[in-house]
């Protein structure tokens, strides 16, 4: 049947300039933005300021890495700010030596504490447990992720307020605080943690079977099921991963601030989702990269930092961030609709 084989020509592959621009748009935008700030405010490009920006975005970045997994499956997690607050309080209490000792301050209190390793473990355990619960609710009871995590947002905030029982928990031992305020050479520790986990997540998504399954489930859940994937397990797992990053973020944040409080992390979900979406991950699932998320996170950090340096009011900053989120998604949708009609 060699004759038949010639009937159908290979699909032509054209260079698609808009497609290429769309792919690198966040990076281009970041470069342009940095150039603009550098011209407007010379202090912006100083190494000190740049590391400062990176330190500020590290917690957002950790959360955004987790959120990338969730959004790749066409899910969403609104509970991360609350879960972060709760996990941070638990970590703080462990460092202080338990609930009854949590408000102790001053010399000698370190002897009572359980130390940062257990504290970090506790934060991560709380995050994972919270994520697991929500993943089960989503896959077993078929409640949409938006609703489950909206509920989680309230539940974990309530748990945090209950657990705090009053003011913040502050004054950790120096080994704990090092994870938020320390440096290795000139590089702040949180930045190292963020970059390390971003690389790890990139490897998981790009090179492992599990990563493939995340993209597949987000791209077409029915096809994934009919290809023999355990769709429910993949979906519930991304909320566990998100929970892990919420716990890790809680530990780093509390170390940086040397304090945990029940009102920590309010509004983080919006900044984090914005970072992921600006980085090119589709809210419809199946499309996105950790690289894009890192760019998106840095982009928002640079934007906020630059606006602060230029004395733009925080109200206007919020307006600008909101507009950029909508524009990013609009551009994404535009690029996609072009592809479909092409």
């Amino acid at each position: 049947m060699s004759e038949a084989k010639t009937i159908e020509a290979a699909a032509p592959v054209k260079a698609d300039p808009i497609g290429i621009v769309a792919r690198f748009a966040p990076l281009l935008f970041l470069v342009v933005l940095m150039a603009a700030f550098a011209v407007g405010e010379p202090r912006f490009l100083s190494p000190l300021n740049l590391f400062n920006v990176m330190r500020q975005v590290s917690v957002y970045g950790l959360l955004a890495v987790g959120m990338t997994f969730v959004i790749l499956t066409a899910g969403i997690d609104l509970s991360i700010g609350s879960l972060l607050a709760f996990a941070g309080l638990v970590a703080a209490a462990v460092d202080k030596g338990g609930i009854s000792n949590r408000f102790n301050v001053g010399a000698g209190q370190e002897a009572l504490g359980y130390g940062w390793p257990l504290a970090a473990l506790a934060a991560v355990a709380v995050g994972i447990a919270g994520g697991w619960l929500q993943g089960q609710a989503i896959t077993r009871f078929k409640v949409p992720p938006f609703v489950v995590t909206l509920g989680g947002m309230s539940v974990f905030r309530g748990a945090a307020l209950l657990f705090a029982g009053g003011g913040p928990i502050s004054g950790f031992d120096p080994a704990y605080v090092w994870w938020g305020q320390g440096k290795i050479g000139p590089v702040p520790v949180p930045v190292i943690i963020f970059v390390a986990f971003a690389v790890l997540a990139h490897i998981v998504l790009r090179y492992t079977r599990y990563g493939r399954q995340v993209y597949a489930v987000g791209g077409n859940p029915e096809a994934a099921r009919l290809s023999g994937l355990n769709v429910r397990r993949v979906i519930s797992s991304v909320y566990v991963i998100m929970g892990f990053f919420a716990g890790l973020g809680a530990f780093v944040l509390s170390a940086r601030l040397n304090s945990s409080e029940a009102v920590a992390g309010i509004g983080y979900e919006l900044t984090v989702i914005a970072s992921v979406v600006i980085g090119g991950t589709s809210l419809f699932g199946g499309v996105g990269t950790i690289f894009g998320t890192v760019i998106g996170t840095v982009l928002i950090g640079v934007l906020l930092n630059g606006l602060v340096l230029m004395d733009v009011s925080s109200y206007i900053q919020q307006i600008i961030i909101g507009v950029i989120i909508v524009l990013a998604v609009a551009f994404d949708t535009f690029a996609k609709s072009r592809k479909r009609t092409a």
Partner: protein
Amino acid sequence: MTEPLLRMSGISKRFPGVQALDDVTFEVAPGEIHALLGENGAGKSTLLKILSGAQQPDEGEIVLAGAPVTMTSPHDAQRLGVATIYQEFTLAPNMSVAENVFIGREPGAGPFVNWRKMAADTRAITDRLGLGLKPFAVVRDLSVAEQQMVEIARALSMQSRLIVMDEPTSALSAAEVEKLFRIVRDLKAQGLSIIFVTHRLEEVMEICDRYTVLRDGRFVGAGRVAETTIDGIIRLMVGRQVDALFAHREEAKAGEAALRVEGLSRRGKAQDQNATVLDNVSLEARRGEILGLAGLVGAGRTEMARAIFGADPFDSGRILVDGKPVDIRSPQDAIRHGIGLVPEDRKQQALFLSLGVRPNLSMAAHDRILTGKVFIDEAAERRMVEEYRKSLNIRMASQDQVVANLSGGNQQKVVLARWLALRPRVLIVDEPTRGIDIGAKVEVHNLLYEMARSGIAVVAISSELPEVLAISDRIVTMREGRVTGEIARKDATEERLMTMMTLGGKKAA
């Protein structure tokens, strides 16, 4: 014949790659029940969509009661008195009967609905139909037959002159069909015309006055039902020349039964005891042969394939692979036992359109290309994809080309390769050549032959009879969830298959 109520003449409609309708003429007289007949894909649906205003013809004229009309939306058609009742009802399930009947046309003053008048009007219509429907019953709680009555009531409330019913009996029990027929005859006595689309030819003989047959988008005949026979209609429906491209292949040597299905049954939704999806289906597929599954749309072929593959549950029956009973509750179970399924809807059910060719192809066979149980060995994966690119002649720019940008035929080859990579014992292919061009069809057929030659038991579902006849070694026909016959390829003709598909399995037969 008197002045027709409806005259569609010279209707042509082209879709990308398909001439769906080609110069079709269709006439319906006032006060008659008219059967519109044809095989799957003959063009009935397109003609109905044009008649209901959902699509516009490229060419042709529609004359309704002597006046030429143009219908650019379903609303136009309704205003002109043409109501269409689709197989999938268009009711709002959470609203009442009365609200559904008068949806968008609620009686009342200004923004306020006159509930009392709406209820009274609904009752007047249901009484006219001889139905005992309460106006404020919620539609979701009604049976399928009752919901259909609500659709008919809505059509009447719009002062329709012509009611189109697409497969109205396919979801009804025998008693419900009788009731529907009584109502349809009443409507006819009241001067309405009804277009009746059905695959059940005995129903045509029972209730219709005249018929029109389409084949491959063309008008092939019309006449009075009283002056023909079921055989005559079947001849009109299938009487085409067998496509020379679909050449028969040499006889295969069939081996042991790789797949046996015994007494597979699946009931429909709980509210509707009559809806049986699969009724005691038994069949076997042997190593090295292609078993063709023929049947009209809704005969239960896809449902059976999905039940075997674990994609849908079943209520009773058992599945044996290589003679051993296997417990299949999910696609993962089926895959573990060496069963693969190429689903009927490539884009919705098989492809990850946003991903590249490489991950699409390897998705079910990751076990073959893992290193350290976790990581995908990209080099091994590329070799595997390259192997199938060559053997299946998949045309792509690179392994990383997004699969959405491939042609339909190449997409289908990627899906087939996904299952070949799994080295299945049994491969079920559901409409393997739907929507792909003729050259690619021949290639897919050759692939199926090669799979069979390599010892795979291939089960091929196709709604195109010439395709079933060309590729199958044995053919099993289904109708309404039951197996209605089995025939060797050498004994099969389109006419015989059509008879088995449309008449077989009747309780009397």
